[in-house]
């Protein structure tokens, strides 16, 4: 073989010649085709199957005319919106600190912010149950301080689910905001400060507008992940708190109604993919506007 030839060109030409380069792809691609693409196709296909075995929208009609199902859908969207807001509001100060601090506190805060991700959803849910339940940590403390007489209903409702999900998704928010804030040219902040801007107005007029793409990605990642979360709403929201994910579980394992489960799963899929699609478009628009000089 001619050694003086540029290797990348040689490599490219060789791979054009030999279909052997595709051989390593056979196991991973066939695993995904068989156990991901095919099941997804079957599930979406089933959602369009009518009782007579034909093809139609009757399952979707059933879903969108069922008040309970629509309630669940609405509850899913409200819960995800609240979680997305609280995650982004709480993640911002942490991410800003991590992006700009140069002290050794940075490492400590970083470990504290990200390490909980290692503990599974189940461990964190258990912690919140102990804190929020009727005889839990918060109610006990408030009663012994004489601030309340009856325990507050902190779990078994929307509040419990939102608190639990905010905790689970906070690291995602912090990481997406961190990348965005780190990308902001620090000289902009410095020059504004030299020209006499207060820290607050630097934050308001420089950091905040420039971190809008990060704010949006934090909001959307928290929204989509909470829309499809199962364990936290099931355990902290309680039995009566029905969201799409817990409804899907019930249709599959309790009611064994496959078409209904397939419809709900497809609706959830469309919501999540739709949001991802529009967010990339909107993000591009924001980024373009920011870079216009």
């Amino acid at each position, binding site marked *: 073989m001619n050694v003086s030839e540029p290797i990348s060109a040689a490599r490219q030409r060789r791979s054009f010649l030999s279909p052997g380069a595709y051989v390593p792809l056979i*196991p991973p691609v066939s*695993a995904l085709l068989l156990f991901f693409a095919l099941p997804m196709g079957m*599930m979406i296909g089933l959602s369009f199957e009518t009782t007579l075995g034909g093809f139609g929208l009757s399952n979707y009609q059933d879903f969108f005319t069922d008040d309970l199902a629509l309630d669940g859908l609405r509850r899913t969207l409200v819960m995800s919106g609240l979680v997305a807001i609280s995650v982004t509001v709480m993640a911002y100060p942490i991410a800003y600190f991590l992006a700009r601090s140069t002290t050794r506190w940075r490492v400590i805060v970083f470990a*504290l912010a990200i390490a*909980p991700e*290692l503990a599974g959803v*189940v461990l964190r849910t258990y912690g919140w149950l*102990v804190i929020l339940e009727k005889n839990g940590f918060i109610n006990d403390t408030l009663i012994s301080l004489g601030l309340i007489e009856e325990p507050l209903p902190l779990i078994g409702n929307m509040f419990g689910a939102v608190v639990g999900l905010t905790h689970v998704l906070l690291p995602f928010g912090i990481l997406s905001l961190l990348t965005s804030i780190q990308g902001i040219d620090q000289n902009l902040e410095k020059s504004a400060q030299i020209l006499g801007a207060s820290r607050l107005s630097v934050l308001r007029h420089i950091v905040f507008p420039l971190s809008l793409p990060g704010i949006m990605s934090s909001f959307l990642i928290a929204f989509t992940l909470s829309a499809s979360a199962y364990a936290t709403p099931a*355990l902290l929201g309680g039995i009566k708190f029905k969201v799409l994910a817990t409804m899907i579980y019930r249709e599959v394992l309790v009611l064994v109604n496959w078409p209904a489960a397939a419809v709900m799963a497809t609706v959830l*899929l469309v919501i999540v993919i739709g949001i991802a699609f529009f967010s990339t478009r909107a993000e591009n628009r924001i980024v373009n506007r920011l870079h216009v000089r």
Partner: protein
Amino acid sequence: MSRVILSSLYWAFFVLILLFIALPLLVVIAASVSPTVSVTFEFWTWTFEWFQRMWAPRWIDPFILSAKIAALVAIITGVLATLAAYAVAYRKVPGHTAIMSFLLSPLAVPQIVKGVAIVLFFSSAGLYHYLGFPGLVLGHVVLTMPFATRMIVTAIYNFDTNLDRAAQVLGASKWQRVYHVLLPLIKPGIFSGMTFAFILSFNDVPIALFLVRPGEITLPIKVINYFEFGLDPVLAAVNVASLLFLLAVIFLFEKIGGFTAQLHGGSK
């Protein structure tokens, strides 16, 4: 003056957020060694009773099952993702961008939807008796492979191709270059992908939810099912034990794979 108030308010909010993050974990650790069922914060009395009570088949069996699944998933995902990343990022086969988006496509699908799809596939293909261990391994491979592929592809992109070129000039064959140059240098990436796969599989709820069967229940599902009977402190002990187990696994994988060096830019 108002600036001082504003800035102290800001830092108070900051500390509250950190407390919010740490509190549930601290509570679980406290509950696992607390003698009473409700968490009293009396640090002078503590017990290992709950950890001893954990040592029963009810908890040990799911623990071992979850660990076996996670280990097998880490290995299978490690091999498949390395093969995929090799073809896509190193050989750059024609159409590699399209293949890469296909390999990453499961990331766009909510996990509970993947779970439903897989259990639907198993039951309508008449493979219902493969639920449990084999089904869980397959489901978790689908769950973890995109993450591992992305990590290994990044490692290959960071790989210095000049080293490859040097080996070729010195007469190394294709296999020699892969085995002695590429693989050792992307080993940290492969191991971080495998570690990630292990953690994801060990903690997974939304896929295992549909794939477990009586007698073959993973630890997180077992714990969730047990929540109905109230907050038994044994659950806190189980959770703390699994967290310690994961830390030990990460430590072990790090010893073999040395992936923290990568975080400091060591592999480049």
